[in-house]
C-alpha cells in the first residue's frame, strides 16, 4: 500500500493517469459521434431502399393488380438477403410474404414504424426460440386501393453489427491505452524516478557533511546529467570558497593569537615579582602599542572583506593618479632617506580616472612601504625604489619597482593572500595584509594587481582598466 502510494506520489504516475483519462474521454466522444453519424446514415439508406421498393411494388400493382403484385413479392422474397414483404387482408390475415411472425401492432399502424421491431422469417427453425425476439427490423406499412395491407421492411442486422464492431474496438482501444500508459509510466516515469532518487540520495550524503561527495552523472548528457553537472560545479565552488575561508580564519587565528599571547605574557611577567614603576610603565606602553597594531590589523581585515564583498559603496571621484604618486612619494621620502633607499618617481603626465582617492593612496602606500622595507639593507647594492605612472590604450599602469630580493615566481600569487608572508620576511615588521588590501582595492576599481620580476627585485603593477571601461 505504501509502495503504491509512493508510486502515486510521483509526477510521472500522475501525468500518466491524467493522459490516460484525457485520451479515454477524447476517444469515447469521437467514437460515439462517429457511431451515431454512421448509424443515422445507414438508417437513411435503409429507408431509401424501402421507399424505392415501395414505388416498384406500386407500379407492379398498377400494371397487373393484386395477383401480379403477389407474384412479384413472392419472387423477390425468395432471393437471398431479401427485404421483408407481407401482404394481408384488411382484417390482418396474411396472404403472402416472407415473414412468419411479427411483433403485434406493427401491421395496424400505417406509415413508418419509428422503433425497430422484432420478426421471424419463414423457414427459421423454431428451435431457435431461445431468441423469441427474432431479428430487429424497420418497415413501412401502407394500404392498397383495395384496402389490402402491404409491409415492406429491412433487417437491421447490418447497422447492429456495425455498432457491435465499434463497441468491441472501443474496448480493445481502451485496453491498449491503459497498457500504453503503464508502459510510459514504467519506462519514462520510473526511470526518471530512479534518477531523482539517486540524486536525492547523493545530496543527502553531501548534506550529511561529506562535502567531497558529488552527484552521479550517467553520461547520457540529458537534463538530469546537465543538472547534476551544474550542481557539481556549484558544490566545487562552495568547497573551494569554504577551503579559502577556512584558510583565512586559520591564518587570522594564528596571526592574532601571537600578539595576544605577547600581550598576556608581558602583563603576566610584569605582575610577578617586585617591579619598579618604570617597569610597569614600559610594559603598559608596549601593550598599548601592541593593541594598536591589533586594531590596525582588524581594520585592515574589515576593509579587505568589505572591498571583496563588492557591495561597498565607497564613493569615487575624478582622481589624478599623478597627484597620488606625488603625495605618496613625498610621504615616504623621509623614511626612504632614513633607510638609505633612493626613492624616485617618473610621471608621464596627469592621469585622471574615476577612483577613490583614499583607497588608491592607501594601496600605493602599502606597496611603496613594502618596496622600501624589503630593498633596504640588502648587501652589495644601493637600494632603489621607483614609482612610475604610465598611460597607454590598455589602461593606466602605476608600478612600483624595487631592487630587493624579489618574490619567487611560484609565490607571487600567494603573497597577495591575507596574512601570507614569505619565510624570509617573517621577522620583518608587518601584518601580511598590505598586498591583500592593495589587491582588494584594485579589484574594487575594476583593475588588477600584478607582481613580476624586476631583475633584480620585484615590480608591483596596479593596472587600471582603460577609461571607457572603468566604472
Amino acid at each position, binding site marked *: 500500500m505504501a509502495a503504491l502510494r509512493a508510486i502515486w506520489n510521483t509526477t510521472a504516475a500522475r501525468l500518466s493517469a491524467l493522459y490516460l483519462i484525457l485520451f479515454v474521454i477524447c476517444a469515447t466522444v469521437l467514437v460515439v459521434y462517429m457511431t451515431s453519424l454512421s448509424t443515422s446514415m445507414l438508417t437513411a439508406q435503409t429507408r431509401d431502399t424501402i421507399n424505392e421498393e415501395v414505388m416498384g411494388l406500386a407500379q407492379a400493382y398498377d400494371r397487373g393488380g393484386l395477383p401480379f403484385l403477389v407474384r412479384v413479392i413472392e419472387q423477390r422474397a425468395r432471393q437471398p438477403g431479401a427485404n421483408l414483404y407481407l401482404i394481408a387482408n384488411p382484417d390482418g390475415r396474411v396472404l403472402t410474404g416472407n415473414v412468419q411472425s411479427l411483433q403485434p401492432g406493427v401491421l395496424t399502424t400505417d406509415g413508418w414504424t419509428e422503433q425497430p421491431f422484432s420478426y421471424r422469417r419463414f423457414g427459421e427453425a423454431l428451435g431457435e426460440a431461445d431468441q423469441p425476439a427474432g431479428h430487429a427490423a424497420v418497415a413501412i406499412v401502407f394500404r392498397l386501393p383495395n384496402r389490402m395491407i402491404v409491409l415492406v421492411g429491412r433487417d437491421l442486422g447490418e447497422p447492429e453489427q456495425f455498432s457491435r464492431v465499434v463497441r468491441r474496438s472501443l474496448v480493445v482501444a481502451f485496453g491498449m491505452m491503459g497498457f500504453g500508459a503503464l508502459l510510459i509510466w514504467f519506462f519514462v516515469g520510473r526511470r526518471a524516478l530512479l534518477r531523482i532518487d539517486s540524486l536525492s540520495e547523493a545530496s543527502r550524503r553531501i548534506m550529511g557533511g561529506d562535502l567531497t561527495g558529488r552527484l552521479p552523472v550517467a553520461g547520457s548528457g540529458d537534463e538530469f546529467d546537465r543538472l547534476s553537472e551544474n550542481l557539481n560545479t556549484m558544490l566545487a565552488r562552495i568547497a573551494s570558497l569554504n577551503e579559502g575561508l577556512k584558510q583565512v580564519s586559520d591564518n587570522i587565528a594564528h596571526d592574532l593569537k601571537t600578539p595576544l599571547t605577547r600581550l598576556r605574557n608581558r602583563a603576566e611577567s610584569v605582575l610577578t615579582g617586585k617591579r619598579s614603576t618604570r617597569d610597569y610603565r614600559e610594559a603598559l606602553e608596549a601593550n*598599548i602599542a601592541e593593541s594598536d597594531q591589533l586594531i590596525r590589523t582588524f581594520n585592515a581585515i574589515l576593509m579587505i572583506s568589505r572591498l571583496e564583498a563588492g557591495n561597498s*559603496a565607497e*564613493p569615487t571621484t575624478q582622481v589624478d593618479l599623478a597627484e597620488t604618486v606625488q603625495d605618496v612619494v613625498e610621504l615616504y621620502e623621509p623614511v626612504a632617506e632614513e633607510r638609505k633607499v633612493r626613492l624616485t618617481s617618473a610621471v608621464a603626465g596627469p592621469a585622471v580616472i574615476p577612483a577613490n582617492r*583614499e583607497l588608491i*593612496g592607501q594601496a600605493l*602606500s602599502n606597496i611603496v612601504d613594502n618596496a622600501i622595507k624589503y630593498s633596504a639593507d640588502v648587501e652589495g647594492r644601493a637600494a632603489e625604489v621607483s614609482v612610475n605612472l604610465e598611460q597607454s590604450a590598455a589602461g593606466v599602469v602605476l608600478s612600483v619597482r624595487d631592487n630587493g630580493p624579489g618574490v619567487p615566481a611560484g609565490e607571487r600569487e600567494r603573497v597577495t593572500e591575507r596574512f601570507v608572508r614569505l619565510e624570509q620576511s617573517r621577522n620583518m615588521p608587518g601584518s601580511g595584509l*598590505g598586498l591583500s588590501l592593495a589587491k582588494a582595492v584594485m579589484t574594487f576599481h575594476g583593475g588588477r594587481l600584478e607582481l613580476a620580476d624586476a631583475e633584480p627585485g620585484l615590480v608591483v603593477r596596479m593596472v587600471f582598466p582603460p577609461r571607457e571601461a572603468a566604472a
Partner: protein
Amino acid sequence: MKILVIEDDREAAEYIQKAFDEAGHTADVAADGETGFSLADSGDYDVLVVDRMLPRRDGLSVVAQLRARGKTTPVLILSALGEVDDRVTGLRAGGDDYLTKPYAFSELLARTEALNRRGQSKEVETVYKVGDLELDRLSHTVRRAGREIVLQPREFRLLEYLMRHAGQVVTRTMLLENVWDYHFDPQTNVIDVHVSRLRAKIEKEFDSPVLHTVRGAGYMLRAG
C-alpha cells in the same frame, strides 16, 4: 572642558567618562539618542561625542537636528562602521570629526581637545607663537628667537597644524588627515620621520625642545 558622551554601551561610556575625568575634563553620559539630544540641546557643552548607533534615535539624526536648531557645538562621531563613505555621511550630517571603533582613548582625547580648541577662534590668527617659535601664515615664514628657519611646504603645514594645537596632543592619524588629507592608518613610522625632520630644523642650534613626543599617543608642541 565639558563633554557630553552619547553612547549606549554602559561599560564603554563609563570608561570614557572616567578617562576624561582623569584628563581634567568633565563628562556627562547619555545612554540613548533622545536623552542625548535634550541634554545637548539644553546644556552648555564644549564638545559632543556621539555614537552612531543608538537606541531610540540614531546619532546622525541627533547631530542633524542639533545643527538645524542652530547649535554649533563641535561633534565627534563614533562609529563601528568604518568605510570612507560612512565618514563622509557622518561629516555631512554635521559632525566635525569621525572616529572608528575600536579606537585608542588617547586618540579620542586628542581629537576631542582639538575640536574644543577649534570652538575658539584660533583659525583667524595670522601669526602663531609658541615660546620663542613664531609662524606667520601670511608670509609663510618661521622664526625662532628671531632667526628664520627655512621649511619645505609640507613641513610648514605640519608645523602650522602643530602650532594651532599647541599644548595639545596631536596623534599621527590626525597629522596624516590634516596635513596630507589621507584618512588611512599611517604605515610603520612615516609620520614620525617627518616629525623628526621638522624637529631637527626647529630644535637644532637651539637649547630648548618645543616638539615633544607623547608616548603611546603622538606629539605635542609646547614651550619649555
